C-alpha cells in the first residue's frame, strides 16, 4: 500500500512542478512533510542537498532518496517512477502533436520566435547559477576555461566534468580555494 502511496505522491509532485529544481520544494513539503509525514522539513532539506551533490536530475535524486528511506530500495524505485510518469505521458503526447504540425509555416515561425526566448532563458539560468557557483578566482578560472574550450572545441562534457572534479580537489588541497 505504501508503494502505491509513494507512486501517487510523487506523480502529483511531478505533475505540479514546472521546471524542476527549486520549483519542486513547496510541492515536496506539502506531499512528503504535511500530508504523509514521511520526513521532516529538515530531513527534506538534507535529501535535497544530497540530490544536488550527486549526478543526475535533482528531482529524481530527491524522489529516490525519500522513497528509499520510506520503503527501502523498492520504495526508491517506485518513487522515481512516480516522479517521471507525468512527464513521460505529457511529453509523449506533445511530441506526437508537434511532429505532425511542424511542416506548417506558421508553426515554423512560432518556433523561430520561441528559440529567441530559449536563448534568454538559458542566459538567465547561467546568471543565476553563476552567482552560487563562482565565488572565488579559482572557480572563475575553471568556469571560463570550460566555457571557452566548450565553445571552440568539440570535447565531450564528460571530459570537463572529470577534469573539474579533480581540479576542485587539487585546488582545495593547494589552499587556493576561497581566494
Amino acid at each position: 500500500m505504501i508503494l502505491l502511496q509513494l507512486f501517487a505522491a510523487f506523480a502529483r509532485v511531478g505533475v505540479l512542478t514546472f521546471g524542476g529544481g527549486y520549483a519542486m520544494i513547496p510541492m515536496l513539503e506539502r506531499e512528503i512533510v504535511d500530508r504523509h509525514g514521511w520526513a521532516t522539513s529538515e530531513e527534506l532539506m538534507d535529501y535535497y542537498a544530497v540530490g544536488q551533490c550527486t549526478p543526475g536530475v535533482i528531482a529524481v535524486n530527491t524522489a529516490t532518496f525519500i522513497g528509499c528511506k520510506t520503503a527501502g530500495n523498492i520504495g526508491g524505485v517506485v518513487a522515481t517512477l512516480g516522479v517521471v510518469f507525468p512527464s513521460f505521458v505529457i511529453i509523449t503526447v506533445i511530441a506526437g502533436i508537434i511532429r505532425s504540425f511542424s511542416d506548417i509555416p506558421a508553426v515554423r515561425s512560432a518556433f523561430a520566435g520561441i528559440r529567441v526566448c530559449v536563448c534568454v532563458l538559458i542566459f538567465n539560468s547561467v546568471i543565476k547559477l553563476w552567482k552560487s557557483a563562482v565565488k572565488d578566482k579559482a572557480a572563475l578560472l575553471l568556469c571560463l576555461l570550460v566555457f571557452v574550450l566548450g565553445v571552440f572545441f568539440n570535447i565531450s562534457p564528460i571530459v570537463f566534468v572529470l577534469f573539474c572534479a579533480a581540479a576542485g580537489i587539487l585546488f582545495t588541497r593547494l589552499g587556493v580555494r576561497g581566494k
Partner: protein
Amino acid sequence: MKLLLTLFFEFFKTGLFAVGGGMATLPFLYDMSARHPDWFTTAQLADMIAVSESTPGPIGVNMATYVGFRTAGVLGGLITTLGLVAPSVIIILIVARVLKQFRENKYVDAAFYGLRPCSVGLIAAAGVLVVKIALFDFDAYALSGSLSDLFKVKALILAAVLLVLTRAVKATKKLHPIFFIVGSAAVGVLFSF
C-alpha cells in the same frame, strides 16, 4: 534494437555525468546531436528546451522523453527516460546508506567545488550554440558575404525586449517562463520570423 540500446546508453551517460539539475543535461544533448546527427538537429534541440520548460516535470526528464520519442517513438521515450534516471537511482540507493559520511566527506565537497563552475561553463557554451542559430544566420552570411545577412534583426530586437522583461522590469521578472515562451511564439507568427 541496436538503436534502443544506444539511446539507453547515451542517456545513462547523461544521467551519470550531468551535475546540477535542469539545464545541466543541455551540453550532453548538444554533444549527442553532434555525434548522432540523424537523431535531432541543434534547432530541434532548442524547440525541445521550449517544450520541456513549458510542461510540468523536471526539465532533464522532459528532454529525455522528448528526444527518445522523436528518435524511436513511444518505446524510445520510455528507454531514454529510464536510461536517464537509472544512474540516479543506483547512486542514491548507495548514498542513502552512508548519508552522513557522504555529506561530510571533504573529497566530495572539494569535487563539487570544482563541478559547480564547470556546470555553469558547459551550459553557457551550449547557450552560445542556441544563440548562433536563433539570432544569427551564418549560412546566409557565408553565401552573400554581406554583414546585413548575418544578423536576424527581428530576432535580436525580440531578444533585447525579453532580456529587459525577464531581468529589469519588476512586474514581469517573476512571471513563469511559459508566458515568455508563448509570447515569443506569437511574436514569431505575427512578424513571420
